[in-house]
């Protein structure tokens, strides 16, 4: 059990008094990639936000543990510092805050004493940005302000690589991306996998061809209704979700 990164047991989550997640359990171990697939409105994004601790998502019952520690007493920033990362479906823009400054501050907040020196940080940053095909002019722009969809997703992946999490939650990070950007995202996920567990939320099979999930879970109406291996993704692509509905 030393490898257990995330465990969710009997989770119920409400938003504005409406129950969205209706009893969900899931365990992710180190080195595993789990995919969650499902239609719009099935509760996938709610799950990701609830795990990270968004204040609008109320956990009415059940428990989430990160590396054995219950999350209910941890603030959002403490979860981040403990090694959890959420790649947002719709990242907020922060006008006036430059990407470079933001990344440096985030790395020093999350990695604390182990944060790299200014020089090593620049080196690390340069390496990741080259791999992601990001021009250095990115660093002078304001966080997500006026970014295209692809640029936002690249910045999310860049943050994931720099913050080097132990649990990565990726909420529709692949939506709206062309094949090059998709490869960037999948390379990012694959590169952290040996030292992390990942939860990849997606509509589409195409990302899963590139990241090879160990488990695919199908979510319908706030519950996981079926779990399988990577082949399940192909099956869903071909048959849709109707056959899984009760």
């Amino acid at each position: 059990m030393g490898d257990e990164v995330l465990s969710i047991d009997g989770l119920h989550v409400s938003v504005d008094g409406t129950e969205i997640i209706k009893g969900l359990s899931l365990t992710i171990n180190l080195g595993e990639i789990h995919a969650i697939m499902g239609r719009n409105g099935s509760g996938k994004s709610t799950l990701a936000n609830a795990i990270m601790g968004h204040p609008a998502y109320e956990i009415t019952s059940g428990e989430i543990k990160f590396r054995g520690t219950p999350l209910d007493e941890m603030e959002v920033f403490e979860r981040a510092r403990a090694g959890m990362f959420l790649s947002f479906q719709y990242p907020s823009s922060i006008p006036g805050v430059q990407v470079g400054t933001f990344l440096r501050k985030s790395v020093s907040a999350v990695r604390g004493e182990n944060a790299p020196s200014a020089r090593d940080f620049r080196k690390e940053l340069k390496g990741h940005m080259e791999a992601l095909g990001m021009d250095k002019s990115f660093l002078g722009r304001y966080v997500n302000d006026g970014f295209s969809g692809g640029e936002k997703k690249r910045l999310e992946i860049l943050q994931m690589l720099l913050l080097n999490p132990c649990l990565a939650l990726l909420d529709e990070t692949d939506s709206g991306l062309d094949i090059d950007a998709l490869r960037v995202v999948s390379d990012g996920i694959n590169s952290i996998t040996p030292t992390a567990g990942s939860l990849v939320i997606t509509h589409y099979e195409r990302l899963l061809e590139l990241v090879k999930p160990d488990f695919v879970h199908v979510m319908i109406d706030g519950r996981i209704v079926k779990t399988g291996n990577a082949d399940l993704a192909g099956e869903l692509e071909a048959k849709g979700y109707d056959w899984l509905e009760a």
Partner: protein
Amino acid sequence: MSGDKARDAVGDYRYGFHDPENATIRFDKGLSEKVVRDISELKGEPEWMTSIRVKAYHRFMEMPMPTWGNCDMLNQIDFDSVTYFLRSSKGTENNWDEVPEDIKNTFDRLGIPDAEQKWLGGVTAQYESEAVYHSIREDLEEQGVLFLDMDSGLKQYPEIVKKYFCSVVPASDNKFSALNTAVWSGGSFIYVPKGVHVEMPVQAYFRINAKNMGQFERTLIIADEGSSIHYVEGCTAPTYSTESLHSAVVELIAMDGAKIRYSTVQNWSANVYNLVTKRGVAHSNATIEWVDGNIGSKLTMKYPAVLLRGEGAHAEVISVAYAGKGQHQDAGAKVHHLAPNTTSNILSKSISKNGGRSSYRGMLQVSPKAHSCRSKVVCDALMLDADSQSDTYPTMEVGNSSADLEHEASVSKVSNNQLFYLMSRGHSEEEAMGMIVNGFFEPFTRELPMEYAVELNRLLELEMEGAIG
């Protein structure tokens, strides 16, 4: 997490310390014609200046309080309890070692001597009514740049002062310009000769130390044809339970093709009334830029103005205001397009928190003869909680149809999604709020000398922390 913790935080004012009051000359509280004459006599001024002062005093007594801004707060000012003149040092020194020890310590704590060595072309430090320290780099002096405290300016260059004093802001412009003209003391006098570019900024620092003090500095900057200068001012005061009054007048004259940038970071303690008249005249192809930050004070009423008098002149006003608990920042800009092909940009940003109130009050005027003018006005307000207030009073008077004018205004709140996003990257709620606030002010901050920008960012981060622990 609702954001309440960060939003309720009350910042600590770092400059609220005070020194013992060791006045060498202190006038009795209250204002009369005698007080006005005594100030003038004490300074050994020429008769014409005494006469300007006395006339202005009578105008002040006659004129009503402004009917805008914050009438309740204005009417609380007790002019009889104000000390109108306080001399705390024998003279203006040009060596920090000669400045009285406690005053020197104050400016050390404010980092002024250090900044002077590193990045300034000249410094004036005013303590209460008069400058206690003054210096200018030799190379600027050799190029004929005059940078003096205003009292010395009047003594040494009476003909220049006589020509321009009250030429941009008449004594009767408003009640507080009349008051300043009557009792002015200190401030800066600058003349930049034709074609001279002053590369390093020159700075004035204003410190009120005594209780119930009135500080009435008067600044006059003349940039001759094709010259340029950047003037920076900072201000702080101790935190007392009684109020102090700061009422300055600043006049700028940019001759043909000249450029004046005037940057202010006003950080008075929350017991200071800050009622200031700032106005510049820009002649042909000249540029005047006001970069105006208002973080402190109880009530600020200040609308830096530019008269675009010559063809092709340009005005730039960037202002930010932060209104915390019990504060009202009534700030804005006025631009008068009086000549053809003149242009202006006004950017105003305000933040209100803990029940603070910020108002944008703007005037944009295009005279009938001023054809082909362009102007853009942008006002953005950020509210950090539901108790705070933000309002906008823009006025436009356009005298001809060839003007190209844009006006944009927005009011926004910090969203929970923004906070959540930043917190998910390891930042505490206060840190996240600090980043958002600094980002909001960034278009202003990036215009400041780096040392000021860093200080301002730190200040705002502290404002977001406050009540922790």
